[in-house]
């Protein structure tokens, strides 16, 4: 038996003797370090961060020292959560605990010697994490280099991944790719939208805001991050470098390759797309600025004119209706009862089908497109969720767009057939100009200008209600606005639909312009239809709440005479009234028309209210 063994037996016997003789009240002056004699427990522990709580502060479950010394009572695993409750709570949901079963001491190596961190906290975190997570890319990155230089703002491991609350996103298997992308985008944005922090480091604090105004940013915000560029998709993850660095993913030399990760088969000029431009910055982005300002001016002028027109019209009609009611005057009709109930065809079946399809496609486009435009407000997120995500909304949007494009082409064809009813033969060419500016055409002419002036005079009680032919000037505007708007909204929409293909025609910055045009033209179209068109056609007091003529196709002879006096006189003179007389629309058609019409009106009015609410308060 060695000398050491003899010493141990003697030491333990002494302790036994002392314990056996004790009456339970006597103090036993035994220190843990009498047995645990290594320098770690004797000296280093006292100087550690936990030095003042003593051994039993953690090893509290050792109840019987005599059983402990003969190794029959061992300390169980330490619960750090007893003191570090908050950390313990979040740690229990972290990746390291749930999947790797890490305990506190697995990262806080040598817990008995743990000292307050002398060096910069961020550097200490980076050093500790990289013991397992070797990442040369991070060390060479802008973030890593800045942290090592002592920058207190730059991102260390825990700033993105969490410290004790590392998320259970194991990106290697791409199992939680959606959650991971949302989480990391949020993390990037939280620092890069911090004004003070960005200004301190010479970076733009508005980059995030500008990104969120792009298609990528809007869709990402709505929860479709798997197929739209988030921060890391362009800037990469651990090896983020300044744009000027030749290895940077966003260096102009590497940009095409970078875009190609998502946008396949692109022309190099695709990369000229601006990922987060400030389109209000005239100096840096003059074309975007001009596009934006032009659209704003167009919107302001259009609405200033038409809302004033609408308001004056409503006043005049309402006042007039009130006056007639007050005086008990009923409008007289020059027709007999039989003539009065006679229905006159105004819209053909083709017209009506086209209008129904137009309503369906238009509402489809508005419902699926506006949540993207106003992505940050609650109703947008609700609508997108109802549609099953922005991806589905995109599919529906394209489907509705196909219908609209189809209608546009049919309208074009019908215009040509209207001008050249028998083809392009020499005989037909003679009359096409007459037809173009004739009473059945939607082309504005001198008479419209006269009627407009007469209408304004009527608004101010300075003249009679003008006599109209088949189409009024506001109806012609309705048609032509949609017709010309199709070139802007359709052209920009097709560009944004297939940007890869479009890059072979024009450079990437055109997509930025297309986004502005598409978005603002959509606002113009939706608000125009839901306010001006709805009022002119349905909400005017004489027709309130709805005029179903576009669905039923006909109106009474008296209505023709009253609202289209010139047309009535012309038809009568040409003896064409007979051919336009049709039967009263059936009950089924009337019910279906009402259902469809009221639904459309209601959706339109709801959308107007939420658009205006978003515009002013969103």
């Amino acid at each position: 038996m060695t000398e050491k063994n003899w010493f141990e037996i003697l030491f333990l016997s002494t302790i036994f003797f002392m314990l056996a003789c004790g009456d339970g009240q006597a103090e036993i002056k035994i220190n843990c370090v009498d047995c645990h004699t290594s320098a770690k427990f004797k000296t280093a522990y006292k100087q550690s961060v936990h030095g003042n709580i003593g051994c039993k502060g953690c090893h509290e479950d050792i109840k019987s020292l005599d059983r402990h010394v003969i190794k029959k009572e061992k300390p169980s695993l330490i619960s750090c959560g007893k003191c570090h409750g908050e950390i313990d709570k979040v740690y229990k949901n972290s990746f390291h605990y749930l999947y790797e079963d890490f305990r506190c001491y697995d990262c806080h190596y040598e817990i008995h010697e743990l000292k307050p961190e002398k060096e910069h906290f961020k550097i200490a975190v980076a050093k500790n994490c990289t013991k397992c997570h070797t990442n040369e890319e991070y060390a060479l990155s802008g973030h890593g280099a800045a942290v090592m230089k002592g920058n207190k703002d730059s991102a260390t491991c825990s700033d993105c991944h969490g410290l004790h609350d590392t998320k259970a996103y194991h990106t290697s298997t791409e199992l939680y790719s959606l959650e991971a992308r949302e989480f990391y985008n949020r993390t990037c944005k939280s620092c890069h939208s911090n004004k003070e922090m960005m200004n301190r480091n010479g970076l733009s604090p508005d980059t995030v805001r500008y990104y969120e105004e792009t298609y990528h940013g809007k869709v990402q915000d709505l929860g479709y991050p798997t197929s739209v560029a988030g921060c890391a998709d362009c800037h990469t993850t651990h090896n983020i470098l300044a744009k000027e660095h030749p290895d940077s993913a966003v260096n102009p030399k590497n940009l095409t390759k970078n875009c190609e990760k998502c946008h396949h088969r692109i022309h190099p000029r695709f990369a000229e797309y601006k990922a987060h431009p400030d389109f209000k910055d005239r100096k840096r982005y003059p074309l975007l600025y001009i596009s934006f300002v032009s659209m704003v001016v167009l919107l302001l002028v259009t609405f200033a004119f038409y809302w004033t027109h609408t308001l004056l019209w409503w006043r005049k009609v309402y006042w007039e209706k009130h006056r007639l009611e007050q005086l008990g005057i009923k409008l007289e009709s020059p027709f007999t009862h039989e003539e009065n109930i006679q229905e006159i065809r105004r819209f053909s079946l083709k017209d009506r089908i086209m209008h129904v399809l137009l309503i369906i496609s238009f509402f489809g486009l508005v419902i699926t497109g506006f949540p993207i435009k106003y992505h940050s407000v609650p109703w947008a997120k609700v609508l997108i969720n109802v549609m099953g995500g922005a991806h589905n909304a995109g599919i529906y949007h394209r489907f509705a767009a196909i219908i609209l494009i189809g209608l546009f082409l049919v309208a074009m064809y019908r215009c040509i057939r209207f001008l050249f009813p028998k083809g392009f033969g020499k005989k037909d060419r003679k009359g096409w100009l007459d037809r173009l500016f004739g009473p059945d055409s939607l082309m504005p002419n001198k008479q419209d200008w006269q009627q407009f002036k007469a209408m304004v005079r009527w608004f101010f009680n300075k003249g009679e209600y003008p006599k109209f032919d088949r189409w009024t000037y506001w109806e012609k505007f309705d048609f032509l606005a949609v017709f010309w708007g199709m070139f802007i909204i359709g052209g920009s929409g097709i560009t944004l639909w297939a940007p890869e293909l479009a890059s072979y025609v024009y450079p990437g910055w055109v997509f930025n312009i297309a986004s502005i045009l598409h978005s603002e033209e959509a606002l113009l179209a939706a608000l125009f239809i839901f306010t001006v068109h709805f009022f002119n056609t349905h909400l005017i007091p004489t027709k309130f709440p709805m005029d179903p003529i576009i669905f039923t196709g006909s109106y009474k002879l008296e209505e023709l005479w009253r609202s289209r006096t010139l047309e009535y006189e012309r038809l009568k003179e040409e003896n064409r009234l007979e051919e336009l007389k049709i039967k009263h629309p059936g009950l089924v058609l009337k019910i279906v028309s009402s259902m469809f019409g009221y639904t459309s009106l209601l959706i339109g009015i709801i959308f107007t209210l939420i658009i205006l609410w978003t515009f002013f308060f969103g």
Partner: protein
Amino acid sequence: MVLRLLTALIVVLTVFLSCTATLPQKTDESYIEPAQAAVLIKEKGAVFVDTMGYLECMDHRIPGSLCIALEEFEIKSQTSLKDKEQHIIFYCESDECLRAGQTYKKAKTLGYKNIYILNGGLPAWKRAGYEIESQQRIKRAPVVSIKPHMLKNLIKEKKGLFILDIRSEDLYKAGHIDGAVNIPLYTLHNRLKEIPKNNPVLVIDENGKRSFLVCCWLINNGVKDVIRFYGGMKYKEIQERKG
């Protein structure tokens, strides 16, 4: 007038509601939640079966679990689970792991009647706030890892690199890195001698979730230079697909 507007409102709401997506309900009765498992243990005397390797099971498991790896179930069940009426709950290390489901199928074929799978595996059990136990905890150690694109350089730089593939025999046969030696994790604790302690060792698993513990175990057992293959073979395949 009011009636018309009301009808219109109903139509709009119907259209909206009909578009609302409904989530499919999980109908598979074989999956049970941690709270249901706890009740089964109390009321039916159910036992947990950890389907991971022996080293993993001994490192951390649901208290009282039997350590029966997927690959050993046919043999070990003959002695450990003789009663085919016994309530058994299988689990593995994550919701991504397929081993519990595979063992469940084997058990079903063998005639076990009251068998279940713990939905979400061990992480779900922990999340629900239940305790776990460690019989032979492997001390964690710093482990260097490499990503697939670094493999070629590693082979060049580290002379005598021992590539240890700890996946099952079947997965290994289906495809492996050239020169890799297959010692399935469920047999590893008995085959330490086959691993050269003085050579660098690269540990490869299925999805990067099992190799870390093995690396720590090797370090604790005297292997000096241990490297982990980040993300396992699954990550390598994903990266290769992406090009």
